Every structure is written in C-alpha cells, then in structure tokens.
C-alpha cells in the first residue's frame, strides 16, 4: 500500500515525537530511578508518588495540569516563553512535553528495577580496586543496567507513539503539528466513510509497535550475550 502525504506526515511526526520523548525523559528517569533504588532521603515517598502519577491519573487530567503549568501563562510555560521565546502550545514541542510526562514513569520503573537487580557487591569490589564512584557507575553499574534501560526506552517509545489523552488536551489536534497517529485515528473516526483510512493507520500503529519490541529484544539479547562465554 502506498501512503498519502498526510499519512506520511502523521507517521514522521509520531516517530519524531517518540524519539524526542525518550531522549528528553531518559536522564530524568535515570536520576529518579537511581534516587528511588539507591538513596534514602526525606520525601522519598512523595517523589515516588509524583513519579507514578502519570500512570494512575486519567491522561486528560495530566493534560489539564500541563495546560496550567506549561501553557503560555503557566508557571513554567510563561518562563520558557519569556526567557527563550519557546511556546509549547499547539505545536509538536508540546506533544513531546505531553508524551514525555506520560512515558516517564514507564521508563523510570524499568530502570529502577534494573538498578535493584544489580549486585552491589560488584560496585564495592570496583571501589576497592581504586576507581572513583563516578567511574564505578560508568564502568560497572551502567553496563549492568543497560538491558533495563533498553526495555524502559522501548516501553517509553511505544507509550509516546500511543499517547492520546494528555496530548489532545494539552495541544489539541492540529494537522502537521500535533496530529500524531492516535490523534489522527481519532479524527478519522469522526468522519463518516473513512473506515479504510482508519484501518491503514491502525495497521501502521501495530507494525511500529512490533518493530519497537523486536528492536529492543535484539538489543537486550546482544547485551546478554556480552556476559556469556567467550
């Protein structure tokens, strides 16, 4: 099947948003995962709850909060506009913001589990060999949690491709700017007689999901093989 220019736009926008989403979420997710897995501090429970809010709240509510916070008159949005002239409203950057918030807990949870699975005795051993803590993190911890990071990023990528509620609430439905795959499918469903077009986008969604999972499985197997025999 050949794709219409509108469909290509939708797919490219969705992929672009998903890539930016996991790129934006990765470091905060790594940091929060590390804090929750490794550190004891005042307010840890609160951080844990906040980090999980996007999973348990209705996406529309998250979208509403984003509107309030990141809108041009929001606390953060206003500051962004004033300082950098960046507006998130009604454009693809806003979609990235919405999907990042929604994908964050999924990425964070996978990395946190990986942190918890690391044998900390190995890190201790590395310290006794004279390496600094940052070096131990880079050479021991990070390689050992890599499969977890990959799994988390795949989940986040898929989540970003599928995000609907927060996106449409925050940045509406603008072709070429904020109309990602699920938003496009939703729009088409409003138009009588577009069943074929809907089906095409649905098939594309499924294929993208499969590809993402296959890629992550392949990466995970590669990293497991690195631990295996010579």
């Amino acid at each position: 099947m050949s794709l219409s220019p509108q469909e290509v736009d939708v797919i490219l926008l969705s992929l672009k948003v998903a890539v930016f989403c996991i790129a934006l979420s990765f470091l905060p997710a790594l940091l929060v995962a590390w804090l929750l897995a490794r550190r004891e501090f005042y307010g840890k429970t609160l951080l844990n709850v906040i980090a999980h809010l996007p999973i348990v709240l209705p996406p529309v509510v998250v979208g509403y909060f984003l509107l309030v916070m990141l809108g041009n008159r929001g606390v953060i949005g206003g500051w962004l506009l004033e300082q950098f002239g960046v507006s998130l409203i009604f454009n693809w950057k806003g979609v990235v913001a919405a999907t990042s918030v929604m994908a964050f807990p999924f990425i964070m949870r996978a990395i946190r589990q990986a942190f918890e699975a690391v044998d900390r005795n190995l890190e201790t051993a590395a310290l006794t060999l004279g390496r600094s803590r940052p070096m131990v993190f880079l050479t021991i911890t990070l390689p050992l949690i890599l499969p977890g990071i990959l799994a988390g990023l795949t989940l986040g990528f898929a989540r970003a491709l599928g995000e609907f509620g927060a996106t449409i609430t925050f940045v509406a439905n603008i072709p070429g700017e904020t109309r990602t795959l699920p938003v496009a499918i939703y729009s088409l469903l409003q138009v009588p007689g577009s069943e074929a077009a809907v089906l095409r986008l649905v098939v594309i969604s499924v294929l993208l999901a499969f590809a993402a999972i296959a890629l992550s499985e392949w990466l995970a197997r590669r990293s497991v093989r690195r631990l295996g025999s010579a």
Partner: protein
Amino acid sequence: MLDVRLHKKLEDFALDAAFAADAGLTAIFGPSGAGKTMIAKMVAGLMTPDNGHIRLNDRVLFDSEKRINIGVQRRRIGFVFQEHRLFPHYSVRGNLTYGAGRKGGASGKIPFDRVVDILGIGHLLDRKPLALSGGERQRVAIGRALLSTPELLVMDEPLSSLDDGRKAEILPLIETLKDEFGLATLYISHAIEEITRLADTLVLLEKGAVKAVGPASELLNRLDLLPYTGGDDAGTLLETSVVQYDRAHSLLTVATEQGNHLYLTGSEKPAGARLRLRIRARDVAIATTPPTSLSILNHFEGRIEDHCAGEQGMEELLLDVGFPLTARITRRSFETMGLKKGSPVWALVKSVTLSRH
C-alpha cells in the same frame, strides 16, 4: 605497617580489637562469628567503626577523634572477597586490569605476566567470568586485587567458597604470590591449615576480642592458646632450610634455625632453599628411652617444658628438643610413662607425616 584499634557495637555483638601488623602476612584467626570479617571490612573502609583508628604505613585511614575517614577507593587496599565478585561484563583480562591504574600503589612492581603465570590463568584471559569454574574465578579475583597494586592486600576467607580440592590447589598459589611479591597482607580465616601454611603474624580473635597477637610460630606452640589454635591439625610451625637431597630415596634433609636436622620425603629442592614445615602435635610420639630399631627417622632428645590436659583423654605437651615442639598423646600413656614437667624424653616424628603437601 598496619596499626588498628577498632570498636564497634552491633545489636548482639561488640568488637573491640587492637593490633599492629608488620610486613608479611598477618592472619586473623578465630571461629565463625568472632568478628574477623568485620575487621577486614573496617580496614578496607567497607564498614565504619564506632571509634578507634586505622593507620597504614604513614597514612591515617580512619580516626574517630580527628574525624578522618578515607573512602574505600582511596585507601589503596586490595580486597579478595569470600565470593569472587568478578565483573560479568568484562573479560578475565578486563577484570585483571580493572584496578591497574591505581595511583600510588605498592612500591614494588607487580608484573601482569608473572601474576597470570603463577595463577595459571593465561589461557582464560579472553573468557568471560561466567565461563569459568569456581576455582578459576577465585584465582582471577586474587590476581585482580594483586594487580591493583595495593599497599595492603586483605583476603577475607578467600578459599571458603571452594571445595577441598580447589582449596588445595589455590593455597600453594597464594603462598607463592606471598613469597614472590611480599605484599603486606591481612588474611582472614578460620582454617588452621591455611594459617599454619601462610601466617607470619597471628591475631587470635574470639567473640570480638583479641586473645593474642604475635609471631605465628610462637602462638601455635602456646599450650594456653590450644583451645583456640587446637583441633586436629594443631601443631608446630618450623622455618627450615634445605641441607641436602638424597635423590635415590627422595629424601630431603632440612635444618631448623636452631640447627636440628629433620628428614622428610618430597621433591628435590636446592640446598639453602627455605621451607616451612608443620609438625602436627598428633604426629609426634614420645619415648623415655633412646629409640632403636624403629622406622622413624626423626627423633629429638629433649625434655617436657610444660603440659596440660587436652580434650577427651588427651594430654598436650610442649617439649624443648632444641626447638619448641608440641605433642599430643593419650593421658593414659602420659600417666603410665610417669611423665611430668622436666622429664627427659625423645620425641619421634614420622618423616612421611612431614611430607610437604
């Protein structure tokens, strides 16, 4: 030179230990639960004492009064753990060289090839730890700690996770490494076999307190310490040098520092080579007349220096036969032979029991 005073109170255990260790291998010996591993961890910085101090050569690693507590990574102390703790994502070579960049390590160089050679792991360098056997892994772990050129090497029961066969295989390697590189070592163990084989200085630990500190050969001969150093394998440690080798009979003649000659079977060693021997107390027999027409080659004339009752009908003797020697005989023999402090005796030691592993 390691100088420590450590105090730490846990819920159901208190450690209060102080000792100093010179160069060479200092063994901390005691039963399980004596606090040996706690000492190892505190020295390496893996556990913080409530108060006390840890000094290594000219550096203060910990001092509760001066509020000094140097981090693990800056203590320059290599650690061999009970379990190997190899990095699964590094090859054997990668593991061995992981700590090689340490700043200000041991003054003497420790060459990679020589360590690999002694440990017999040359053919494993490109493998990953998962593909190694238990004994191979622990050998790599020992090499890794050594090659990080520490000022002090701490070995916390490095053989305890291995079966007897592997233990017997690795113990001589540790001995060779010790002889060759002379790295100051703190060796934790509850196996007297390892202690007698390796220790220069012995720290006897029981229930968190130091019972005795001193040269291993002295402490192992002390009757009052037998409850701690005793057991089946208790005995005398002798530093000897080879006098000659009788190839026809595979018989070595060695001399103690005091000049007594001993005979034992074994492989050829050059004259003058140093040899550490262990005479188990239960391998020593006692006679009150000069032995004749006996198969036993080693007999020494002397007298009973001291004695005490041992476990289960046994009598523990300390003899002076030119060198101090412990003997363990039945109390019945002790009584029927009319032995007492000062009695002149001949000590008999079968050469085959001296055979050096």
